[in-house]
């Protein structure tokens, strides 16, 4: 069976899931399953088959599983949004169509992803510009204290969703070039005395600093990891000039934290950067320095940006009296909704979303908390299924990176996949209180035009890389 035929067959269970989901939601509302559910299912299948035919024509060798997985996630998202508000679901369906259109346009325009390398500085500048748009007076808008959206007339738009694509493209290209220079091959080991000095000084400094600054356990760990990683980096005797760009990206993440005031998107960008840095250099020490600098900076800023500090406090104890009804309300309600779902959930369409008066019990159910709605309705099993679907998508994305021939393709596929995976972790982790709750979307599932469109383009790029890698492998006669 060819890759494309496998993809086509993969779409059949996806459409069934979507039809069954709509059927369940409609059944709880009207007590009889109208043929509307079949219409929705068929319509969804039709759209996906169209996109499939397009892939068949343009990218015959691309990975056959990624598109059905993304379609399944989008379908589940549509069912959940429909369950929350039919009008929102109609809008989301329109955005899904727009997303598919941009998906096709991206595939048409970017015949070979290597052309992107040529425009990397333009792309980087545009992405940073996009990120800063929400701070522009007039069009920027603040939601829950974070500057993530811009509003032009009736259309709301989250530029960060597109900026993440651009920044990954830039980083992949940049690190492909400099990754080898950042770490020179190890010279012969340092003499004994120098080694003692190299490791001894950071250890001594750490031990001195902990009592001096009254650091808690978390702070001490952060400092220790930073010092030791820094010493490890120095051991490679890198030339200082190559650390400029690294510091630049760190600075950018900090500036984002200050300007956008959103820990989640900042974490997403910097996490994607660290993932790429590690894949390009293979040095954990760089990651140690980078992540400790990020967390240190984030901690320092969280003390000084009220909105971020509040999110952290809520994360530490959402049930504190006085907090649980105000700042902690969203997170507390998210956890209550999940507890209400239990092992198997209340069933699609059965979860409690409205108070008897008509006001909502779950704030931002269709965006931030859509995972909580899923847990409430489909239970732990449904949620594990969703996470499993994401993990499969990540697996296929990283496999694309593995099979790609050149450094840029590897880094691009890995970076795009990593930023998707981190985004899932940031929002689901926020909703389940693993990390502070922030306002990034759940890729493909959450309501939001920018999110679905940007992620469809991300998928298009992954498929382009995959098509190149696999067709090349086929030409060489390898088994794919």
């Amino acid at each position, binding site marked *: 069976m060819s890759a494309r035929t496998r993809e086509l067959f993969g779409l059949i269970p996806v459409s069934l899931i979507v039809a069954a989901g709509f059927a369940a939601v409609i059944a709880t509302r009207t007590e009889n399953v109208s043929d509307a559910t079949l219409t929705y299912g068929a319509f969804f299948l039709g759209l996906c088959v169209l996109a499939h035919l397009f892939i068949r024509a343009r990218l015959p060798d691309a990975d056959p599983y990624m598109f059905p997985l993304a379609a399944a996630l989008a379908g589940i998202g549509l069912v959940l949004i429909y369950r929350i508000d039919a009008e929102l679901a109609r809008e989301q369906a329109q955005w899904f169509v727009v997303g598919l259109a941009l998906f096709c346009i991206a595939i048409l325009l970017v015949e070979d992803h290597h052309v992107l390398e040529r425009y990397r500085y333009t792309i980087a500048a545009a992405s940073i510009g996009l990120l800063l748009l929400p701070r522009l007076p007039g069009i920027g808008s603040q939601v829950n204290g974070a500057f993530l959206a811009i509003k032009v007339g009736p259309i709301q738009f989250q530029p960060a969703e597109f900026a993440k694509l651009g920044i990954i493209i830039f980083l992949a290209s940049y690190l492909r070039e400099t990754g080898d220079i950042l770490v020179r091959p190890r010279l012969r080991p340092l003499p004994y005395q120098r080694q003692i000095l190299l490791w001894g000084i950071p250890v001594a400094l750490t031990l001195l600093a902990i009592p001096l600054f009254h650091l808690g356990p978390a702070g001490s760990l952060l400092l220790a990891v930073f010092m030791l990683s820094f010493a490890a980096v120095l051991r490679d005797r890198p030339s200082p000039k190559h650390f400029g760009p690294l510091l630049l990206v760190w600075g950018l993440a900090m500036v984002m934290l200050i300007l956008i005031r959103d820990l989640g998107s900042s974490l997403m960008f910097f996490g994607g950067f660290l993932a790429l840095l590690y894949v390009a250099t293979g040095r954990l020490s760089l990651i140690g320095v980078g992540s400790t600098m990020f967390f240190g900076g984030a901690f320092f800023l969280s003390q000084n940006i009220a909105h971020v500090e509040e999110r952290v406090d809520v994360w530490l104890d959402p049930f504190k009296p006085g907090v649980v009804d105000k700042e902690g309300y969203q997170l507390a309600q998210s956890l209550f909704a999940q507890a209400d779902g239990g092992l*198997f959930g209340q069933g699609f369409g059965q979860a409690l979303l409205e108070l008897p008066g008509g006001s909502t019990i779950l704030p931002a159910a269709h965006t931030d908390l859509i995972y909580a709605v899923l847990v409430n309705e489909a239970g*732990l099993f449904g949620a594990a299924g969703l996470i499993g679907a994401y993990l499969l998508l990540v697996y296929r994305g990283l496999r694309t990176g593995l099979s790609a021939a050149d450094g840029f393709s590897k880094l691009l596929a890995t970076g795009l996949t990593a930023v998707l*995976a981190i985004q899932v972790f940031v929002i689901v982790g926020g909703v389940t209180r693993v990390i502070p709750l922030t306002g990034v979307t759940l890729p493909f599932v959450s309501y939001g035009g920018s999110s679905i469109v940007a992620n469809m383009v991300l998928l298009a790029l992954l498929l382009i890389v995959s098509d190149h890698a696999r067709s090349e492998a086929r030409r060489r006669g390898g088994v794919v």
Partner: protein
Amino acid sequence: MNRQIVQLFGLFTVLFAVLVIFTSRWTVFEEQSLADNPANRRPLIEEQRIPRGLILASDGRTALARSRGEGRGKNRIYTRTYPRGPTFGQPVGYSYIANGRRGIELRYNDDLSGDEDEFSSILSGLESQDREGNDVVTNLDVAGTEAAVAGLAGRKGAVVAIEPKTGKVRVMVSIPEYDPNQIPSAFRRINSDPNQPLLNRTTQELYQPGSTFKVVTATAALDTGKVSPDTVIDGSSPRTISGAPLENSGGEDFGPISFTDALTNSVNTVFAQVGERVGAETLVEYMKRFGFFEDPQLDYPGFQMIPSGIRRNGTDYVESGFDVGRVAIGQGGAEGALDTTPIQMAQVAAAVANDGRLMKPRLVDRIVHKDGRVKEKIEPDLQAEVMKPETAEDLTAMMARVVEEGTGTAGALAGIRVAGKTGTAEVGANREFTQPWFIAFAPVDDPRMAIAVTVERTTGQGGTVAAPIAKSVLEALLGGGAG
């Protein structure tokens, strides 16, 4: 680079596993504590939307509690009403969002609210049924309960009637009553009423049992073979028991008297001697078989029940070191005195009536689905084999004599032989009040009902105050003289 990509996949797998672990934490491991969190309004909202099932009397028709709906569609909410008002207030209890629950409403809340385990909720989810409560059919008898309320006639006290063979509780009346319908509007007033209407005097209040406890002493003595019904014992008065003189009621001197006659006439001095013969250890063992020293094994909320037993200074339960002679006649001293609930004494009568086999008392007979299918039938369950059948037979004959020619003649029914025992404890700082008791079962040949009646801090004897109440309740339950 490939090695790093594989490692990256490992990292993402771990991160996603963390997400699943945390989701399990909220959905499974901490589900209950989140559901109980006071900031969580979901359970309250859900609860109001469910029509709770009916609570029905033993006839399966008379509603003791029902739900009334208000509003339409998604905004429809239900509140509880109690058509019989205060009459069944104690056993049925109440269920209100703001005031919580009591009684059967609390004990059978899961059934009444249609709470299902995970697997059944999937099934009903597939059938897309709305959640709806099940009906609870109790063993409570309307006529018997009304007779008990009428019999007590506003005097503080308690009546419990139990079917000996099955343990079905047919009457549970505690006076003063409260009207559960008034709980939402007047809870504060009802709760602070000095007459304590919220106290269930049948299960939650301890009284001195007086001479009714002689049935327990007799059980221990006969069952261990220490005495037989014909054993002659010296019934002169007063006699020195544990170093202090003990008198019979009214100071009457019976001289040498058979054990049967001693029960008929409730001779204190005889039973004190028998108690000393039995010994403290054996007496406590038999008390435990009857269910003393633990909460009644009733399907009723634990906080509304208290163990009967021997208590020092009216607080600590003791199993040794007490004056066994005085405990044997239902009294005691500072080092340990008897305190029992009315339901415990009804169980004593029921155990004798059922050949020594004590059944677990049951308020509820069955849980019924809204469509009429029986979801759960509560079968009779043995609590303890208290005594040998022969012992029960002897005791039944002795207790029948009490009603025929002894202290309990006022409990006799026309056409039905009744076996019983009276009791009159003296209470109050100067023993100026009495606590009259009557425990009985009928008919003697094939007992269908056991009963305990007591009136709180009054004047008069068990045979004159409590026995007539028991008589009217037994008539109502057994169908008068028709039998």
